């Protein structure tokens, strides 16, 4: 499902005429640039991958200089494929892999170390140390986040501790920190020659350093983590003009938005009202629920984060739940088990049977995530009998994604008190019709797929377009949203409850597999 090929969309017929908005998506495995027209239709796409660097088990790095080279190249590529010039582009927006951390020299623009990627677990021990006697939740009230290795703050501290002479240079104000949005914007707006050093509220909300209530850096946390404030970018809204592009074919175009990738998808799905939620089905799955102006504290293992902020309007908050293994379970069936040849075939295999045949698959490959957070859990296939075939297992694989969606949605409703009217979906797995119907059945809410699959880039484009008045308001963006498909729940309530009970029993059986942590 991650092998769905969308990169060839660059040949989409450009019946549309300008002006346009461009969006850069600086992602975990690749960077791409898409040019959109006023209706939100794709005019051109360019994409390039960058190297994944694995220095040690659990460590993941990117070369930030390579990323910047790739970004320049895809911006040029998308603009030339669209056969337009900078004059036709009203603004450029940025969305990015979240939490990935880079520190660089302000005078030369040289990174002082490879960027530490969000998946990197080298700061596990550091995070436990920061937790002191309080534990994971030490900064949750201020930041909405648990102390975990994903987030940027501990990664900055690791770099300060481990790159020779860095702390002194940082204290002298020679070094800048950024997540990938800051890195791209600083370089795009001139780098050492007047580049602006900013980040947006959504990216800043993933550092563990920003206070959700003030939307500013939290001095107490900075002191606790011993991070000098002069490193940090200015926190701005998600949609405003930060500066003007100084290089690439986009030179002269206002740089006007930044959003973390999942927040950009929320924006691209036009989830602008409290209670609207989107679910992005990729390797893993990320579900975000718009909670309006409310900072909802989670007691069910969800993360509280900023959804977006448009200019000087009030910020919009969100609850976030992530499922670690969804598309990657299908890949596992393909690559490790060899039961299917392509990801899409899981649906063929699952459709060869009427039901799961009594089998349940809980893919707790690296523990259970939201809402359980049990690192001692490991994967289980429960309910096996002689009757069970590979078709039943394929069915159980798809049901696992649907049940995990249900668990996160339940947790969100419990924490926020908001009833979900519908789930807006995007991502590669939405081409799986059986999965989408199963999600609708298990969650007992309509599942809706929009016409533009590229909701992440679209979100960044929308925010940038709003900032420069290309679109007047969020209502105009809603009018662009088109329903491509809708799956309505069609499952007997008693059957749903019975199946859910079985699933929960299977989940129970994953826990406590590892004797001790570490």
């Amino acid at each position, binding site marked *: 499902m991650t092998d769905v090929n969308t990169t*060839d969309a660059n040949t989409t017929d450009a019946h549309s005429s300008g002006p346009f908005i461009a969006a850069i998506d600086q992602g975990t495995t690749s960077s791409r640039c898409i040019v959109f027209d006023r209706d939100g239709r794709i005019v051109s796409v360019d994409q390039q991958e960058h190297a994944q660097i694995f220095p040690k088990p659990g460590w993941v790095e990117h070369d930030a200089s390579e990323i910047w080279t790739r970004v320049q190249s895809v911006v040029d590529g998308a603009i030339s494929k669209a056969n337009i010039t900078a004059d036709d582009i009203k603004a450029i927006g940025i969305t990015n892999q979240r939490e990935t951390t880079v520190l660089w020299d302000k005078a030369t623009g040289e990174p002082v170390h490879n960027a530490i990627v969000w998946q990197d677990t080298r700061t596990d021990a550091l995070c436990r140390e920061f937790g002191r006697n309080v534990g994971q939740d030490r900064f949750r009230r201020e930041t909405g986040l648990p102390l975990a290795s994903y987030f940027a703050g501990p990664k900055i501290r690791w770099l300060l501790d481990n790159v020779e002479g860095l702390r002194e240079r940082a204290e002298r104000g020679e070094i800048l920190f950024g997540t990938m949005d800051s890195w791209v914007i600083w370089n795009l707006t001139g780098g050492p020659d007047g580049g602006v050093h900013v980040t947006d509220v959504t990216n800043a909300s993933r550092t563990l350093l920003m206070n959700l209530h003030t939307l500013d850096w939290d001095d107490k946390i900075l002191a606790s983590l011993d991070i000098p404030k002069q490193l940090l970018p200015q926190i701005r809204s998600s949609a405003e003009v930060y500066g003007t592009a100084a290089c690439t074919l986009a030179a002269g175009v206002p740089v006007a938005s930044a959003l973390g990738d999942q927040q950009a998808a929320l924006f691209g799905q036009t989830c602008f009202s409290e209670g609207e939620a989107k679910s992005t089905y990729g390797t893993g799955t990320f579900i975000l629920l718009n909670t309006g102006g409310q900072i909802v504290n989670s007691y069910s293992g969800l993360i509280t984060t900023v959804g977006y902020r448009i200019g000087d309007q009030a910020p919009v908050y969100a609850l976030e739940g992530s499922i670690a293994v969804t598309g990657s379970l299908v890949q596992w069936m393909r690559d490790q088990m060899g039961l299917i040849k392509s990801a899409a*075939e899981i649906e063929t295999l699952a459709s060869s049977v009427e039901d799961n045949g009594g089998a349940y698959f809980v893919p707790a490959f690296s523990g259970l995530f939201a809402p359980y957070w049990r690192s001692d859990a490991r994967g289980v296939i429960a309910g096996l009998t002689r009757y069970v075939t590979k078709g039943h297992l394929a069915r159980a694989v798809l049901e696992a994604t649907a049940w995990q969606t249900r668990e996160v949605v339940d947790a969100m409703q419990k924490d926020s008190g908001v009833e979900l009217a519908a789930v807006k979906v995007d991502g590669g797995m939405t081409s799986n019709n059986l999965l989408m119907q199963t999600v609708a059945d298990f969650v007992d809410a309509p599942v809706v797929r929009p016409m533009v699959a590229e909701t992440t880039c679209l979100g960044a484009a929308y925010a940038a377009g709003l900032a420069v008045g290309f679109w007047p308001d969020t209502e105009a963006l809603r009018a662009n949203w088109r329903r491509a*498909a809708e799956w309505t729940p069609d499952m007997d309530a008693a059957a749903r409850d019975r199946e859910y009970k079985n699933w929960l029993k299977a989940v129970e059986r994953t826990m406590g597999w590892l004797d001790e942590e570490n």
Partner: protein
Amino acid sequence: MPGPIQSLTRAAAVLRLLAGGERRLGLSEVAASLGLAKGTAHGILRTLQQEGFVEQDTVSGKYQLGAELLRLGNSYLDVHELRARALVWADDLARASGESVYIGVLHHKGVLIVHHVFRPDDSRQVLEVGAMHPLHSTALGKVLSAFDPVAHNEAMDVERTAFTHRTVVEADAFEKVLEDTRSRGWASDMEETWEGLASVAAPIHDRRRMPVGAVGLTGAVERVCEEGEVRSRLVASVRDAARSISRDLGSSPF
């Protein structure tokens, strides 16, 4: 009916032999195993090699099964793979045309709808994936019948129901429709299945130029047609989408 063709029977025997235990065999081994003259065995092996069914190791000179056989075995295209590949193009077609889009494949003497994109207005619509449409009266069905020989035979065999007074049911007239479809590369359905609805469709080819399905749009006849003809803009959009999906499936334009 004439008897089996001897050289084909022998070629099949050679392939079976190479598929057996040893896998790599020299010319004399093949000839001896099958009781053939060396010259005869060599002629068969060389022909099979030209077709890609057999490969010869350049160093040892021994023969083994070729890559083409593997391709033949894997040629079946999974319909869910087709949907995954077609998704962005079908979305774009719906957006560009303002009409609902369907992708269909041949299934049990009819058209199985494997993908459906809603008409991009805010009206209530129901997902029709899994529905069966008739072969002889719909644009999708006519495209499949025109380009896929199996679909053609089935469409000729089935009872062709007159759904409206416009439905073409008579065999000669239907053949003429398919001929036109082949020569212009697309088919239409002008209220031949449902009163008030018109549709237009074009074939999707895989990398071996095999017709694996059809993509088309359907809408109110007042929107889709102009002066009794399908609007040329819509025909162009449908054919663009069909070409893009075919290209994503590995089909080259030549």
